[in-house]
């Protein structure tokens, strides 16, 4: 189950007023000249094969930050550094570790999501979206920066600043459910802020900023006792006692289980006041949703009682729930063993009935020396000699030691109902001993690869598109942001495509690790040996030994006595 809350009123004119828009964010965007900003904290893996696509965009495990910054390269470089450091302070995360060695500038992935795009492109087609420069209309140059920290743990200290950005904090509305104790006891947790410019009029002359905050969690309802019954107060251990008075709309939208037969397997308490509604045009894509308008609920007769919602299944196990069939599923894993060399394998499965264009982006740290000549492609288990059939474009940025990572970006055409597998080999670098982290034997995390694909709307429905679907459903009022894009979506053209991002698994690579207790042993032992051996040997070799005879000895003694006496 996913919840999302909108404060569309929060979208304000660019830095004109801060009555709803958080000032902290506005100031950051202003001082670092940020056009678009996307920051996602994720803990856990999204199992695309089992869960479909997330309703709100969520990234691979760890922290992902990407932004479009205005200005030329040098300015962007300085601004990016400032941005990561400031956000690091704001969100209590180690974002300042996104330095040059892991920052990249993708050429094909992570295009603008701001609405001016729609205007610059009259008909958004797949080919055009591959273009490297999509804003030919805008005068000032913009540059993309992307960085991710795969091993960043997300916890309460990141949630609190996120809640602080909300106008009602966690005092009212859906956000009052956010109890960290329960949120972090789930199978997947992701929270994000997305900031992009939107248009306020049809010709996009007046722009404003839109801030979208999302939290996605996956509860395993059946974990405790195997029963699929749930209620909001059980899941979150909190209740919604009032709607946020500052919000224009405040709704709980429940995406109901899509059963193919055996209707009425479950009971919703309370039943939605407007009845169960459907979205989707054809029978195959029809999705049932239940909508609870909190504003209406709390303004009505039951204003003082908290909002309760629960679902009870008649049988212990739901029957004939429609299986999720995500269009594109990808997995990535390391091959080989040992600490000298290894390989990387990526499997992308296309379940669609038609060819799908996709962009694959992989960032590999510099300590994995990639050999591009070993790059091979398998289609359904057979090795392809001609890569051109599948790989339309390829961008490869070789790594520079201790300076920048290797970036591999491929524009692919995935044949219908096929499994494409890439493989590439690499050597592991023997790091300097000071470059190892304190937990050297754990290994190094390699961040996830991202596959951006344009999926037909029918398929991508439980994906990014769903967010737009739900938005349309909200029937915005006239004074809300009207954008050309939303109107276009509302037309629900048949050839409409959704851009989805599939994140692969994070990986752990073990590099050759010295025995860190060894240096001490070696240093101490050699020092001792040298001190004893060299010292005594040197002493023996430089000394002149003579046989001292008895008489001479006596004379010497006598002399010594005399000398003592004179003194």
């Amino acid at each position, binding site marked *: 189950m996913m919840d999302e809350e909108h404060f569309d009123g929060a979208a304000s004119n660019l830095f004109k007023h801060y009555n709803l828009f958080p000032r902290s964010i506005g100031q950051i965007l202003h001082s670092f000249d940020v056009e678009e900003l996307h920051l996602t904290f994720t*803990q*856990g*893996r999204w*199992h695309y094969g*089992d869960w479909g696509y997330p309703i709100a965009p969520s990234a691979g*495990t*760890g922290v992902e930050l990407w932004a479009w910054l205005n200005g030329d390269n040098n300015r962007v470089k300085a601004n990016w550094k400032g941005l990561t450091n400031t956000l690091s302070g704001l969100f209590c995360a180690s974002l300042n570790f996104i330095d040059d060695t892991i920052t990249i500038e993708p050429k094909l992935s992570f295009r603008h999501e701001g609405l001016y795009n729609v205007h610059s492109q009259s008909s958004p087609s797949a080919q055009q979206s591959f273009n490297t420069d999509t804003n030919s209309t805008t005068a000032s140059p913009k540059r993309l920066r992307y960085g991710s920290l*795969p*091993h960043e743990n997300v916890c309460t200290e990141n949630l609190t600043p996120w809640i602080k950005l909300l106008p009602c904090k966690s005092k009212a509305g859906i956000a009052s459910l956010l109890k960290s104790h329960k949120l*972090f*006891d*789930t*199978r*997947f*947790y992701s929270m994000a802020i997305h900031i992009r410019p939107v248009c306020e009029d049809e010709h996009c002359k007046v722009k404003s900023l839109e801030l979208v905050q999302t939290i996605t969690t996956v509860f*395993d309802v*059946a*974990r*405790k006792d195997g029963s699929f019954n749930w209620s909001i107060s059980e899941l979150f251990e909190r209740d919604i006692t009032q709607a946020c008075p500052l919000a224009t709309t405040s709704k709980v939208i429940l995406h109901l289980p899509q059963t193919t037969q055996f209707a009425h397997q479950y009971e919703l308490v309370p039943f939605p006041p407007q009845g169960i509604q459907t979205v989707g045009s054809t029978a195959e894509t029809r999705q049932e949703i239940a909508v609870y308008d909190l504003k209406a609920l709390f303004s009505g007769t039951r204003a003082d009682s908290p909002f309760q919602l629960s679902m009870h299944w008649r049988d212990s196990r739901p029957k004939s729930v429609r299986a999720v069939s995500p269009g594109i599923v990808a*997995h990535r*894993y*390391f*091959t*080989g*063993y*040992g*600490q000298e060399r290894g*390989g990387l*394998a990526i499997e992308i499965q296309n379940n669609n009935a038609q060819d799908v264009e996709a962009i694959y982006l992989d960032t590999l740290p510099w300590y994995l020396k990639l050999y591009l000549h070993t790059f091979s492609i398998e289609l359904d*288990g057979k090795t392809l000699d001609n890569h051109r059939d599948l790989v339309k474009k390829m961008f490869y940025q070789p790594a520079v030691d201790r300076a920048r990572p290797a970036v591999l970006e491929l524009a692919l055409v995935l044949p219908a109902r096929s499994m494409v597998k890439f*493989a590439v080999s690499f050597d592991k670098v023997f790091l300097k001993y000071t470059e190892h982290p304190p*937990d*050297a*034997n*754990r*290994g190094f*995390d390699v961040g996830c690869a991202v596959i951006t694909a344009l999926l037909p709307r029918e398929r991508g429905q439980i994906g990014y598109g769903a967010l737009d679907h739900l938005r349309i459903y909200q029937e915005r009022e006239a004074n809300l942001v009207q954008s050309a894009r939303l109107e276009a979506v509302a037309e629900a053209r048949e050839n409409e495509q959704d851009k989805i991002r599939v994140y692969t*698994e*994070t*990986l*752990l*690579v*073990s590099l050759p*690790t010295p*025995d860190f207790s060894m240096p001490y042993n070696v240093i101490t032992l050699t020092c001792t040996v040298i001190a004893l051996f060299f010292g005594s040997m040197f002493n023996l070799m430089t000394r002149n030994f003579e046989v001292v005879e008895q008489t001479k000895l006596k004379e010497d003694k006598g002399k010594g006595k005399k000398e003592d006496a004179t003194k």
Partner: protein
Amino acid sequence: MVAVSFIWLLALPHQGYSKRTYISENALLPGSANVRFDYSDSLAAEAYRDTIQRISTLSSYERAQALEQEFSKIGLKAATQNYTLNTSTDSKRGVNTYAVFYAPRSDGTEALVLSASWTSRDQTPNINAISMLLALGRVFKRCSHFSKDIIFVVSDGDADGLQAWLKAYHGNEENTQDRTEETLRVRSGAIQAALNLDFSGVGDYNAMGIFFEGVNGQLPNLDMINTVAAITEGFAPVELTLHDELIPYTPNLTKNYLNSLKRMLYMMKYQAVGSPTGNHGLYLKYKIDAITLYGFDKPGWHSSRYSLFRLGTLIESTVRSLNNLLEHLHQSFFFYLLSGVQRYTSIGLYMPPVIILGVSFIFQALSLWGHSSDLPSELAATAAGNKAAVALPYSLRSRNYKVASSVLAMSLVAGLTTFHLLTQQFGFPGETPLLKFAASVGVCSMLVFSAVSSAHVRDRILKSTSLKGKSVDKTTSLSSSAEPAPAADWIILKTFILALSALIVTTLSALNFSLAVSIGLIIVFPYMTFRPSHYKVLSLIQIVALIAISPPGLMFIASWWHSKDMSQVLAWVLEAYEVLGTWLLPTICCVYWPLNMAAMVMVLLPVS
């Protein structure tokens, strides 16, 4: 020196020499976690036991399918893997089942493996172990505190199933005529550690053995064993021992020493042979620390019996400990000898005796080398106290390497030939390993025979020519024929053999200590003392001894000891090489046998 090394080796198992084991990795915290495995889970395990018992009689494919369904019912992602493997003696095919428990909110970069094979050590169905896996899967599914994924693997066949699975997991699956390993559909992260369960039958047990020796004598980190030992001591009391021998504790020092010696010899035996004592051994190659827990029932043993309930808590607690790991196991020892579950001898303490043994070879080789240059006349002169004849600091006497080096080269070639003969398929009718082995024995005996006879012939010719030369030279002055006759060929050859032996023993001792010790002890007396003799009987005895310690002789002894057929022993060695990649066969064929052949030639060379 040999005696010192012997005594030192014998001192290794002594109580005073070994130390008590301790948990080195602080993150493990064995037994500190609250275990979730409760009575209802043990009931569930018993229910699974009935299911497994029912499906264990089905064919490979069917039972794998059934098991996959059972795992899916728990809510784990399950799949099966087909594999075939054609060795020179056998064709194996099977189906593995595996399931992954994805740890909630974890990044999935690390994983632990719990595995069990369908057949137990004692060749009976491994029912309790597999039902334990299912029950544990059910328990883990309820928990949200795991930081590592847990992979359940039920492998088919002997070791071949798990081998195929591990290969495919590491992306090395092959698709050739000899081997096919299906690509895995469900994966997780880098495997940190593995526990292999071997609990055959459906009953209770009164003891548990730990098997830990892997392929080529590789050992898991000692902390693996320590963790289980610590948990069985307090949390889940179970009688724990090494392997499957229970030896009662005695306060008697001598008896105690003998028991320790016995346990250590067991371990060294398993290590030297190089084939793993259980499926855990296959993980070690992939840098995954693993041990096998083996439940067995020893009638008449005093310890209390334990059922699935205690076993469940024990294994869950172990998994929880391993789950605590922040880094790959690296703190504790990787090289050790165990003389009890809690007594270990570390590498620093057991290496010196083998090195001394190796050095003794070197010393004898050096002294022989020196002897080969000593002039008998000068020696005689110095012995007589004739001070006028000062011994030269160098020798004019030439050494003749031709025979020695050619014999060694030939025997190495012969060794390689036998290796290829044994491991390659030629496809002629009636081709069996035994036949090929006979052929290789033939090759070797041919070599020995031809080398010896040609050496004798050469010796005769040389003698006759030198006699002729002397008769011719009689006219010239005697002083001009100062160039003395070269040293006997056997001395040079023996020098080479001893030097090579030293090289092998010391090098092997770092790789596989037990194998080095056993090879060293077998060859030390024959190679050091044997020499050509004028007495036919002595030569005969020496040859018989060398044949006895030659690979065919050792194989004969082994087959007689285990009362098995020769072909069975050979097939076992071959399979270990082909399936698991143990080095025993290459080591014996390419290193041990050539030296043995050279030694035989040496003994039969002319005395001169």
